[in-house]
């Protein structure tokens, strides 16, 4: 009874075979999603071997063996040559016993089927299947498995390029700060050189510290204290330029200063606030608040500028429209990708009512540390 029930539960023989194949493939896929390396090859080759059921399976890059699973590993030395030949050939190639003969009398290998692994139209490696007899079915199966592996590697490439894109955007943010601001700050400092040399010297030192922080190479995260220090330097330099036209209120709960935040996630918002605040009415008031809210930290950047149509801001955050706000979308994406969708930017604005941008950051998130 129990047996019968279990069998109906799992379906027919064919169903189970399909399930087993898919399961074996899914075991190999996490390793392959990390890209083609000796480690990922080592971890996935066992499952590919199970999938194909031949005496041995090997994975190579374009020149060298990365991983081998199965019997007869004295053939492993031939993998390099087979790989090179297949890269030259460009498609699946079957080598017979004349090519891979080892001279040992009871060696099971008569044939090696070598299929290229292709990522974005480049051959990055090969999948090699060692077998007694190369039936047409096995050749086709090897080819299909190689294509599936190629697909996984392509996904890995996609992940990698997404990360690279994000890094490039952070680099772009760093670069974005520079041109106008550097020119204007130096101009403002120059105006103090004769009238108030001490202040000019102080401002230059602030400027040096500001650029050192903004252009730093390492680290995806920083502490709120560091980020706010940089914001303060920035505001000091802007005040040197605008004088009394720019008023700033900073209200920071010291309890949240050690919180880890994405590098340069507040700086762009403050730049926007300064621009908006000063653009319309001529004198701007900027308020920066950091509050301790249980297990989260709340950061608000507010200006008294002209405000914006909320619908336009919504579209800009969704990536559909261009906004006169540097890096708003970038900060939003980085916050979401780091802390999850619950932690996106919140923008409160209306025409004529100023703009308030709110960031929420958890005090602890796994893998996030300054």
């Amino acid at each position, binding site marked *: 009874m129990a047996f019968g029930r279990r069998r109906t539960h799992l379906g027919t023989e064919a169903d189970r075979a399909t399930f087993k194949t898919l399961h074996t493939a899914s075991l190999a896929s996490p390793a392959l999603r990390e890209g083609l390396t000796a480690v990922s090859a080592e971890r996935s080759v066992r499952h590919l071997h199970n999938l194909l059921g031949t005496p041995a399976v090997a994975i190579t890059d374009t020149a060298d063996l990365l991983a081998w699973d199965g019997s007869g590993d004295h053939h492993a030395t031939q993998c390099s040559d087979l790989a090179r030949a297949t890269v030259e050939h460009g498609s699946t190639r079957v080598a017979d016993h004349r090519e891979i003969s080892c001279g040992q009398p009871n060696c099971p290998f008569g044939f090696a089927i070598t299929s290229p692994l292709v990522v974005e139209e480049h051959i990055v490696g090969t999948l090699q299947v060692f077998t007694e007899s190369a039936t047409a079915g096995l050749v086709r199966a090897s080819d299909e498995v190689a294509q599936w592996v190629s697909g996984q590697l392509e996904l890995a490439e996609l992940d990698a390029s997404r990360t690279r894109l994000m890094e490039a955007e952070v680099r772009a943010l760093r670069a974005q700060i520079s041109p106008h601001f550097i020119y204007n700050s130096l101009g403002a400092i120059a105006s103090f050189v004769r009238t108030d040399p001490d202040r000019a010297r102080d401002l230059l030192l602030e400027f040096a510290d500001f650029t050192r922080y903004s252009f730093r190479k390492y680290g995806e995260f920083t502490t709120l204290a560091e980020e*706010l220090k940089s914001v303060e330097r920035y505001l000091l330099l802007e005040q040197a330029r605008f004088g009394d036209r720019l008023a700033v209120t*900073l*209200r920071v709960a010291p309890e949240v*200063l050690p919180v880890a935040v994405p590098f340069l996630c507040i700086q762009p918002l403050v730049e926007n606030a300064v621009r908006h605040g000063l653009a319309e009415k001529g004198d701007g008031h900027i308020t920066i608040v950091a*509050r*301790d*809210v*249980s297990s989260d930290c709340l950061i608000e950047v507010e200006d008294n500028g002209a405000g914006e149509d909320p619908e336009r801001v919504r579209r800009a955050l969704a990536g559909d429209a261009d906004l006169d706000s540097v890096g708003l979308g970038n900060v939003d994406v980085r916050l979401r990708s780091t802390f999850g969708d619950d932690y996106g930017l919140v923008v409160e604005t209306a025409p004529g009512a100023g703009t308030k941008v709110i960031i929420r950051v958890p005090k602890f998130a*796994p893998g996030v540390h300054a």
Partner: protein
Amino acid sequence: MTSGADAVPSIVAIVAVALATLAIGTWGLRFSRTTSDFFVASRSVRPGLNASAIGGEYLSAASFLGVAGLALAFGAEMLWYPVGWTAGYLVLLVLVAAPLRRSGAYTLPDFAEARLASRRVRAACSLLVVAIGWLYLLPQFQGAGVTMTAATGAPSWVGAVVVATVVLVNVLSGGMRSITFVQAFQYWLKLTALLLPAVVMLMVWLGDGAPNPADAGGDSAAWSLPLGEGGGQGLYLTYSLIVATFLGTMGLPHVVVRFYTNPDGRAARRTTVVVLALLGLFYFLPPIYAALGRVYADGSHSDTFVLELPRLVLPGAAGELLSALVTAGAFAAFLSTSSGLSVAVAGVISQDVMRRRRTSGVTAFRLAAVVAVVVPSAAAVLSPDFGIARAVGLAFAVAASTFCPLLVLGIWWRGLTDVGALAGLGVGFACSATGVGYALGATDSSGWVDAVLSQPAAWSVPLAFATMVGTSLATRTRVPSHVGRFMVRLHTPEAVRVDRG
């Protein structure tokens, strides 16, 4: 007890403390933080201020009332409570403070997740935080009831309800979250409320010819012996208490949360050193009360004798005023500790229970705060009073049997696995909870079974350690792959430039 006109100063004191706490909670943040001054951001919380805040949150009703009451009744053996509660910070300083801060964890469940990369261990730790928090809150609310009765003659549930309401309003209105300044103020208020009457009473005592407390009555040899009565059992009880208090401090949810405020591991260590000094200073006072109590108030053996002592030593208006001051300090103790604990428990409930159900942040926290306060206060009204210090001691025993092994092994041993941690936490909790259940339903029995069950720490802590180590060794393959990197981050001083990736 007292009634009529006698109660007026105490009632005024209680109302004043409650109102001041609410007012600071509601408006304090605005007053203390509004500034157009630059470079506020670089002013992180100094170790001295942070240590005062930890002291303010940590010194509960048990320290303020319970220790002196126990020492008066049972003698020097009960001084192991304050010794242990202070020495717990020494263990914390040496083994935990800096690495825990460097781990970046805000709560104990955060640390478990960061170290073991396991949601299941995190969930277990969250449950434990709630359990320990409630066990610790229960005597706070009960103590408030007892104090209220002693000070005003009101029924004992009134005090529990008043404290629970003030705490709840405060937490809901967003005040008292972790305002360092407010909590630091609470420490100095508590210290003054005990120190000033103590100085006055000591002068009266000197004027009376300084009678020796040990001779004042009862068995003076037994009163001065720093060991429990009953030979081997007394020795066991004393050692068990030492284990629970020395190792339990690091597992208290509201203490750990405060360490996050330190900018780095070095500051965390400095803070702990200052905490040791501040606690040492404070715990100097309860023994003075106990000794004076033996001279002037022998016979009243309860948690409230500290409140009555000034009146007994110094009859008249001066005594009434000093009693009112002590009552105010006691209420400050209930409010600050209960607030800190409620916030910590509510934070864990809202983060790990409510957020799963997609309740939004503020609503979740408010709901969680209601649950966190109402459950223990209801339990406090319904269950019988069994001594503030003893009940708090049980909370320490649970913390020592669960979080101590997790933290110590998690920080100092690479081999800890998620399965090992779960097994150890389970065994430690099961053993210590058996003790708590036994003590809560205690009958007046004695003998070895009673001793072993009512103070479980001496065997439950080693058992939890052994389980954690044994199970981890058996599941060696499950050691998280990032453990090497994590250890580098925990143990490398900030001054060393190294990739903490």
